[in-house]
């Protein structure tokens, strides 16, 4: 039932109503609203009950194992939530004088420092509101750098075909064209193709490492050299930072700019779609271009730097201070981990991934890059199974829901057919992983003995398999009174 179906004309949640004010008769009539917007007319309890029940229709980290590759769905500490929502933080206006926000600003300043250390970069801006905006900031800085040097010929960004869709989309938003380069059979960048692709038109390369194939790019130093030698800059898509946190720093790989998905590696909650935070870190040469605001500490006070302080900045990307509340959660998480805990993140994320890979291989699954170590995630391909039984990766994924596990990422990266990208994260226990292997094994058997069963999945969810084609063909995007 939709909330609108609980709606009855004139019903109200009275405790939420300010007293009726005098009619706004000073306002010109032609500027006033005449219709009643289609908001629910419901009691407070109706609303509470509706959304409480709706929430129960979700899988989530707090209820299920959620091995969604590339998404780093790990435990979101509850303390981060309650502490970031303390009234002192929640009630502060972004334009209140800095003296009233020293607690918040101190935390942001320290977060900048922590992220500098983690990435090995010279400076960090917390401004971008998600990974994709971090990418935007990064590529915009690359462009600002070339432009500042009068190097206007560099109109191309090189991106491996395995890259996340935001990479090429971002390059285009920054006015670049995209040149894709292939991946070799072991999951590394095809060096020859890269060598062939670079040139005076090269503004930069965007690389995810470990790549979306779940493997660490072994030729990272040569790649770096090829691109830098050609005059391009190197962009590090840090969405997979969880795999290397405290093991190796992108700055030490010679990269010029990186974005970090705090809603992945720093465990801020994904909230059913966001908000995230995508801070960018840069090497010295890109420092002047960092997006504002930045937090500075001088004379015993924290303050925000603006255009006036940072004339070469690519500017602000948000009207206010980015996703401050998300950043606070990341800061709290970082402090609870500490240096030692942070080193452990990559270790145990990697241990879990390699264990799961080994167990699934034993169980008869095809591993996409069987000769490689898994990073914090890895790919299973169901190509053979599909050929044999007709059961697709999507069918398999849906059937996992019936077993009480969220499905891994399906059909991404696109270059591996019928793939499942599996990322367990460090916060899951061996018992959970074993349970997942058991479910995978059981479904494999089902696919062989009773493929129709798997193709009809799921059976235990609030709805059966949904018709996506109909959704896109017969658009029904808003509710209307029958």
């Amino acid at each position, binding site marked *: 039932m939709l909330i609108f179906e609980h709606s009855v004309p004139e019903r109200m949640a009275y405790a939420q109503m300010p007293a009726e004010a005098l009619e706004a008769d000073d306002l010109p009539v032609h500027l006033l609203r005449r219709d009643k917007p289609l908001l629910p007319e419901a009691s407070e309890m109706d609303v509470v009950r509706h959304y409480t029940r709706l929430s129960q229709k979700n899988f989530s980290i707090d209820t299920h194992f959620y091995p969604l590759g590339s998404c780093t769905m790990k435990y979101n500490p509850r303390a981060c939530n309650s502490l970031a929502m303390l009234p002192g933080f929640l009630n502060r206006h972004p334009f209140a004088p800095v003296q009233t926000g020293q607690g918040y600003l101190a935390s942001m300043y320290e977060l900048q420092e922590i992220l500098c250390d983690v990435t090995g970069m010279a400076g960090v801006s917390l401004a971008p509101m998600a990974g994709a905006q971090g990418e935007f900031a990064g590529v915009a800085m690359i462009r600002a750098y070339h432009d500042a040097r009068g190097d206007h010929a560099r109109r191309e960004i090189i991106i491996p075909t395995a890259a996340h869709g935001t990479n090429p989309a971002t390059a285009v938003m920054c006015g670049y064209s995209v040149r894709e380069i292939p991946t070799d059979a072991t999951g590394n960048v095809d060096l020859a193709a890269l060598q062939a692709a670079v040139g005076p038109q090269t503004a930069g390369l965007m690389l995810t490492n470990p790549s979306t194939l779940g493997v660490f790019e072994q030729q990272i130093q040569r790649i770096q050299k090829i691109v830098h030698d050609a005059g391009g800059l190197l962009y590090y898509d840090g969405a997979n930072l969880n795999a290397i946190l405290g093991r190796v720093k992108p700055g030490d790989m010679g990269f010029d700019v990186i974005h970090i998905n705090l809603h992945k590696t720093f465990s801020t909650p994904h909230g059913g779609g*966001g908000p995230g935070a995508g801070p960018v870190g840069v090497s010295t040469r890109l420092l002047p271009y960092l997006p504002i605001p930045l937090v500075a500490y001088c004379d015993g006070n924290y303050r925000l730097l603006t255009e006036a302080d940072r004339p070469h900045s690519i500017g602000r990307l948000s009207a206010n201070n980015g996703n401050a509340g998300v950043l606070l959660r990341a800061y709290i998480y970082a402090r609870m981990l500490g240096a030692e805990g942070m080193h452990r993140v990559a270790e145990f994320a990697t241990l879990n991934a390699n264990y799961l890979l080994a167990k699934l291989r034993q169980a008869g699954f095809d591993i996409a890059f069987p000769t490689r170590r898994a990073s914090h995630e890895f790919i299973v391909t169901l190509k053979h199974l599909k050929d044999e039984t007709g059961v697709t990766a999507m069918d398999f994924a849906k059937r996992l829901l019936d077993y009480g596990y969220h499905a891994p990422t399906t059909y991404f990266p696109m270059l591996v057919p019928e793939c499942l990208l599996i990322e367990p994260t460090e916060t899951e226990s061996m018992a959970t992983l074993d349970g997942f292997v058991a479910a995978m094994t059981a479904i494999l058997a089902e696919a062989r003995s009773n493929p129709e069963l798997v193709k009809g999945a799921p059976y235990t969810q609030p709805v059966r398999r949904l018709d996506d084609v109909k959704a896109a063909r017969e658009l029904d995007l808003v509710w209307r009174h029958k």
Partner: protein
Amino acid sequence: MPFIPHTDAEVEAMLAVIGAPNIDALFDEIPVELGSGKLVSVPDALNEMEITRLMHERAEQDSRQLNFIGAGAYEHHIPAAVWQIATRGEFYSAYTPYQAEASQGTLQLIYEYQTMMASLTGMDVSNASLYDGGSALAEAVLMAVRAHKNATRILMPRTVSPLYRAVVRNIVKNQHIELMELDYDPVSGTTPVPEIAVGDFAALVIPQPNFFGALEDVDALTDWAHAHGALAIGLVNPTALGLLKPPGVWGERGADMAAGDGQPLGAPLSNGGPYYGFLTCKQALVRQMPGRIVGRTLDLDGKPGFALTLQAREQHIRRSKATSNICTNQGLVVTASTIYMSLLGPTGLRRVASAAHANILQLAEQLCAIRGVTRAFRSPCFHEMVIQLNRPASAVLGELAAAGILGGYDLCADYPELGNAMLVCATETKTAADLGRYAEQLNLCMQEGSDADI
């Protein structure tokens, strides 16, 4: 280690299965020359008790004052139910609803949100959110350029928030889009119908209320845009739409898109974020829409359900040809906002809007009775207004802050032509006593200050 469940015995067992001697061996594909990655400036761990104390101390430092600043972020009462429900684990810790069948909670909620937001703005379609108001306006501009096909110029009134204008500029500048500013009428503080005969404009942005809090003549501006072959983009405060005519019915044909910041609908001020940007449009433009969209469909048994749809617009399918690079949006804030709108309903939202409006009128009267304080513009306003002082605004704001009052947003840097001007906001959260306290304190500042000036 915090949040890692493994016991030593389990680590041993797992390594045995992998066939690795130790955890370090799992990193053997990383070239050793890249260094150890040792962290040098990350402090030692605090346990939850310790971080709790630290954050409480810091939050207490960030003192609560009587706030009259708006300028794009507004203090409203947020019902307790809103965040108690939004932070339930099932909403809070879920990912983007890629597996529709296991995400009906989030998906249905977004569908309900789209319905509310489309209706509130008078449009046909809404997406599932963008980052914030500024980036939503940037996306609207890009969308207009895509839709228009022939033009890349955008008319941008100076009555649009300078912060929004900066964001739009920074986001669209690399795509050869030109932003042409339109000046405002110094008497009314609103944007006159442009006196440009013809032109190749993709769109005109129409803020309502505008940054000065003043109401624009949206009908005339919309009709002018349409008459000149441009799209009309309404930039609106969603609270105001409880009271004001929605963009969808501005002028003869209605604006084509509406954008804005959803913060007033249930997001706390929170140092500036997370908020969310909303973007709605007429049906014809739906395929140009950036961001996620949820559609209703049927399942195998013919039962209705919800799923992400029109994904061919998005980066994960279309890659370099996508309508935008946006991926993660501001889902949880939208969740809160949907609950907020449901609790207020049409009556509640209208009452919040009128209470805020009544408050600014009363405040205006009280402040302008003070010697040295005048109202900058003549037009009707929503819940913000510009006042001009005969003393430096920054000094006055500083004195007010010392007395526990955040008096407004200093306009001097962005609008030097207005002199000592500031933007003052009063929402429904302000009582008569609050307004009185502000007036009294400002009166004191103005007197003492002018004494000091002598």
